[in-house]
């Protein structure tokens, strides 16, 4: 079981490394969106500090959306998805591997970048740490839940826009607890409760999402 998950992750990472431009584009999207906010709302440090958790988290959601359509689309186009669906292990297991690979490629860089961007918003060190931690805990859930949407909109007209329509409402709890954790730190309350709930969402998202995703993929392949 672990072997096949590792095989999927290894293959997807290798593919991602062969076309790094996609990853980099999504990262720059994240950076640009975050940097636009001070230009829109003004440079007052107090205001920026209050906006920072929400802005960074919303930008992280949007940046994740950007890479989701390709999660299955390439495999679908060249016929690899059929082979994966016909492999002797459960498709959900393969999806699980792909979700992890997606997070390593699309989620983890956001976690590493966010503190740097947080400095632009005049966040204190402890808030920066919690920001990175909340993203670290929360972004796997984004990949997991997003996979469901990516599978449902596979090969569908206007898939990209539709994908955001389906997935963004489901992201709301992650957004609330993620940004809430940073908020709580800023206002002097502990972030513990938020982070625990975020962890619960991630566990749920990453471990349950592969099943509906696999079902949706089989439907898309019919």
């Amino acid at each position, binding site marked *: 079981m672990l072997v096949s998950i590792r095989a999927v992750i290894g293959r997807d990472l290798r593919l991602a490394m062969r076309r790094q431009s996609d990853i980099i584009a999504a990262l720059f999207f994240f950076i640009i969106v975050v940097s636009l906010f001070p230009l829109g709302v003004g440079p007052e440090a107090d205001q920026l500090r209050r906006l920072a958790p929400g802005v960074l988290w919303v930008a992280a959601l949007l940046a994740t959306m950007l890479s989701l359509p390709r999660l299955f689309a390439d495999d679908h186009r060249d016929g690899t998805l059929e082979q994966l669906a016909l492999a*002797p292990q459960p498709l959900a297991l393969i999806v699980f591997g792909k979700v992890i690979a997606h997070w390593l490629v699309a989620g983890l860089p956001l976690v590493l970048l966010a503190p740097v961007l947080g400095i632009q918003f005049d966040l204190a060190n402890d808030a920066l740490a919690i920001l990175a931690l909340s993203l670290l805990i929360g972004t796997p859930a984004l990949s997991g839940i997003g996979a469901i949407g990516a599978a449902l909109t596979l090969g569908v007209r206007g898939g990209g826009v539709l994908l955001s329509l389906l997935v963004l409402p489901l992201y709301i709890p992650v957004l609330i607890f993620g940004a809430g954790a940073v908020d709580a730190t800023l206002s002097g309350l502990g972030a513990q409760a938020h982070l625990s709930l975020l962890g619960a969402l991630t566990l749920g998202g990453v471990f349950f999402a592969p099943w509906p995703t696999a079902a949706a993929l089989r439907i898309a392949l019919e």
Partner: protein
Amino acid sequence: MLEVSNLECVRGERRLFAGINFRLDGGEMLYLQGQNGSGKTSLLRMLCGLTPAAGGEIFWRGRPIGQLGEEFRAELCYLGHQNAIKEELTPLENIVSAARLAQETLDEDTAVDALERVGLRGREDLACRYLSQGQKRRAALSRLVHERRALWVLDEPYVALDKAAVDLVAGLIGAHLQRGGLAVLTTHQPVAVPAAALRELWLGNGDAADVRDSSARC
């Protein structure tokens, strides 16, 4: 081993075929024929369990394939229209990772040997996007060289191949049948498969198709 009873296919609002019955045993090959759009690919995908049948049942070793699930898939090798070749990876990486995903052990030497057999020697480490259409098809077909699973379902295996490669693939299928394997394939090119107990199935007109045994070459 593979038995199909009363299979029916509906695509959109059109009934492509109905009442398909056949039985295929070890060492036998079924050769699907019909015009474009007669449902050949759909039938193959049904045999793999990718597309659910509108009616009828497919049995493998006496049990419905829907029930068997992973057990059945472990004995199935499907080669579709698309090559399932990643453009970014080299042919070698492609077949090694494909084998690993199919839970097979394929060491590098065997893989290189397979690529050599299909004439991709010296191209093992070139990203597939630089290969020609025919070479990509060869890379995909190199899977068959060391493939030991019992049921091969091949959709147009000869497309985009030159004469030598066609003969090679026909030889691989022949060897597979001699080992007691089963093969179902579609093609528009008449190719003689050596030493095969051949059966033909004609699809068309939405009526019950007829199965013919023909020991003659096609």
